[in-house]
C-alpha cells in the first residue's frame, strides 16, 4: 500500500459510474418512472424526471459509488447547490462533470 492518491478518473470512468448510479436508482423506481441514460438525459430539472426523494437516493448512491470506486468522500450536494438554474443535477452530462470536480476536490493533495 502507498499513500499516493489514485489518478483522477477519466471522463469515461465517470460517465460509466453515472450510468451505474442511474441503473441503481431505477431499481428503486416503478417502470413508468425510470430514468433514461444519455449525456443529455434529464435528471432533476423540474420536468418531473426525478422527484426530491429520488434526488436524495441518487446522491446517496453516487457518493457511495464514488467512495467505492475512487476511494474518496466526495460531497455532491451542499446547501445552495440547486439555487442556480444551471445546477449540476439537471442532466447526465452536467452531473458527470460535477462528479469529476467533487472527486478532484476530495482527493488528498499529491
Amino acid at each position, binding site marked *: 500500500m502507498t499513500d499516493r492518491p489514485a489518478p483522477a478518473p477519466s471522463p469515461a470512468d465517470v460517465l460509466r459510474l453515472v450510468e451505474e448510479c442511474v441503473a441503481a*436508482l431505477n*431499481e*428503486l*423506481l416503478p417502470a413508468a418512472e425510470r430514468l433514461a441514460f444519455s449525456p443529455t438525459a434529464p435528471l432533476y430539472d423540474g420536468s418531473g424526471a426525478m422527484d426530491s426523494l429520488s434526488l436524495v*437516493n441518487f*446522491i446517496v*448512491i453516487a457518493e*457511495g459509488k464514488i467512495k467505492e470506486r475512487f476511494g474518496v468522500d466526495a460531497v455532491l450536494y451542499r446547501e445552495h447547490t440547486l439555487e442556480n438554474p444551471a445546477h449540476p443535477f439537471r442532466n447526465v452530462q452536467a452531473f458527470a462533470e460535477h462528479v469529476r470536480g467533487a472527486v478532484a476536490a476530495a482527493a488528498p493533495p499529491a
Partner: protein
Amino acid sequence: MDRPPRLLVVSDFTADNLAAALRGRSPAWTVTTAPFGQTHQTLLDFSAPVWAGAPEYLVLWTRPEAAFPSFRGVTGGRTPPRPALEAEVDEFLAAVARAAERVRAVFVPLWVSTGATRGWGPIDAFHDHGVSATLDFLNDALRRLARRTKNIFPLDAERWLRAAGGDRAYSPRGWYLGKIPFVPDVFKRAADDVAEAVRTLEVGPRKWLIVDLDDTLWGGALGEVGRDKILLGGHDPAGEAFADVQRELAALKARGVLLAIASKNDEAVVRDAFDRHPDMVLRWTDFAAARINWDDKAKNIADLAAELRLGLNAAVFIDDHPAERDRVRNALPEVLVPDWPADPALAPQALRTLAAFDAVAVSEEDRRRTALYAEEKARAAAAPGGSRDAWLKSLGATVWVNRLNDADLTRAAQLLNKTNQMNLATRRLTEGELRAWAAPAHRRFFTFRVADKFGDAGLVGLGSVEVEHGKARVTDFVLSCRVLGRGVERTVLSVLAAEAKALGAATVTATLVPTERNRPCAEFWERESGFEKSPDGAYVLDLARAYPAPDHLTVARASA
C-alpha cells in the same frame, strides 16, 4: 393468492424506499405508507385515512430513539431509569398488539442502532447504559410479544445491514438530506424478506426439495469414479463443503422439508454409496422418494410429485448443472429452481439463505413429515391383493376428534392454509382469525387426528359447521392428502352431521367453492359424500337420516 395483498408501511423515517422496493418486487400489491413521523398516531387511531384501505399486512419499522424517548438517554451518554424505559416499551408494544388484531400479520424489523456506533465499547453489551444491551432489552420484549400473539413477526434488520455492507449500510447523508437512515440496498433486502413472509402467509412455504447427486451432494460422478473416490468429507476443502451441504439438507429435513432425489445414475450404486461411504451425512432413508435413472429430470420430478402427492408449486429443485436447471425451469415453471454456485464452497450458504422454506409456524407434523411418508409407503406396500374393505379393516385406524383448542391451533391453521386438493372452501385464516371464528356458540370447529398400525399421521383433518335458524352449514372440510381414500372423509362428515343435529338443525348443507386445485374435493362430494345435490349446486343431507362413520374406523371423541 386470489387477491393481491394490501400492505401498510408505518415508519418514523422516510420509508418510501421500502414501499417502492415492495412495489417493484410485486407490482400487483397495494402498498401504502403512513405519513412521515406519524407512527404513534397511526397505531392509536384506526380511523386514520391509511387504515381505510383495510390493509392485511402492517410493516412497522421504527428507530429505537423515536419509539422510546428513554433510548435517547442511552445514546446521550446517560443511563435512563429502567422503569421508564420498561413503561415505554409496554405502551408501544400494547399499541402494536392492538394493531395486530386488525391485520393478518405485523412485521416489525428488530430495533437496530440507526447509525454506526461503538457505544461504550467493551462494556456496551452488558451494562444498562449500553446501546447494544438496551437494544437487546427492547428486542427481547418484542420477541416475547411475538410468541404470545402468533401474528407479529420480528424481522432481522441486522442481517439487512450486514448484507448491505455493515457500517456502510448507514447513510448519514441520506438522513440529513431526506430522513433516510439507510442506503437503498437495505430497503431492497427488507422488501425481499417482507415479500417472502407475505408469500409464505398467503400460499404457504415450499414443502419439498429435489436434489441431484453428482457434484451437488458430493463431488465427482459416482458411476465413473466409484464410491471411495467421490469428494465428500475428509480433509478436502470441496469434500468438506459437500458434507456441509448434506448437513444443511438434514437440517431442512428436521424442519419438515421433504427430501427427494432426481439423479442420472445407477440406483444400486447410489444406495451403496449412501449406506457405506464413511462421510455420508444423509442416509437413503432420509429421502422420501427417488428417481434414479437416465430419464428426463422434468419427467422424473413430475413422477415424484405424483408419488408423494405434493404440488409442483411446493417444490424446489437443486442441481449443479445449468442445462438440467434450465430444462426443469422450462418444463415445470411452478418448480422453484434457484441458481446454484459452481464452487461447492458457496453451496452450503446458498441453502442457508434460500427463502423458499421460510416458516410462519412449526408443528410436530412438520418435524415428522419424512417419517409420515415412510409410514404411508409401508401402508401401501402392505395393501393386500384382496378387497379394499379388508385392507382398510386391516389398518386398524382410529380417528380422534377434538374441538379446536390452543394446543392444536398452529397445526390447524397450517392445514387450513396449506391444503388445496381436499378443501371445500379454501378459506385462509391466521391463527388469531381462526380462533376468533370458532369461538361463537353457534359454530363448531373440529380437528381430526388419524393413527393406524403403521403410525400416527397426526392432525390431518378439519371440519366446521355453523347453525343458524335451524339450518346447518358445513364451512370447512379439509383433509391432508396423506389420509385420503381411507374413510376419514365420511368420518369427518358424520361428526359434523351429529353436531349439527345436536344444535337443532334439520338439514346440513355444504357449498363447494371451486378452485383450480380442489377437483378431488368436488369429486368426493359428487360421488362419495352421500349428500344430495340440490338445484343450486349445494350438497344437502337430511339429518333425519342416519349418517354413521365407516365401521372399519374407530372414532374417539375427547370430552368437551
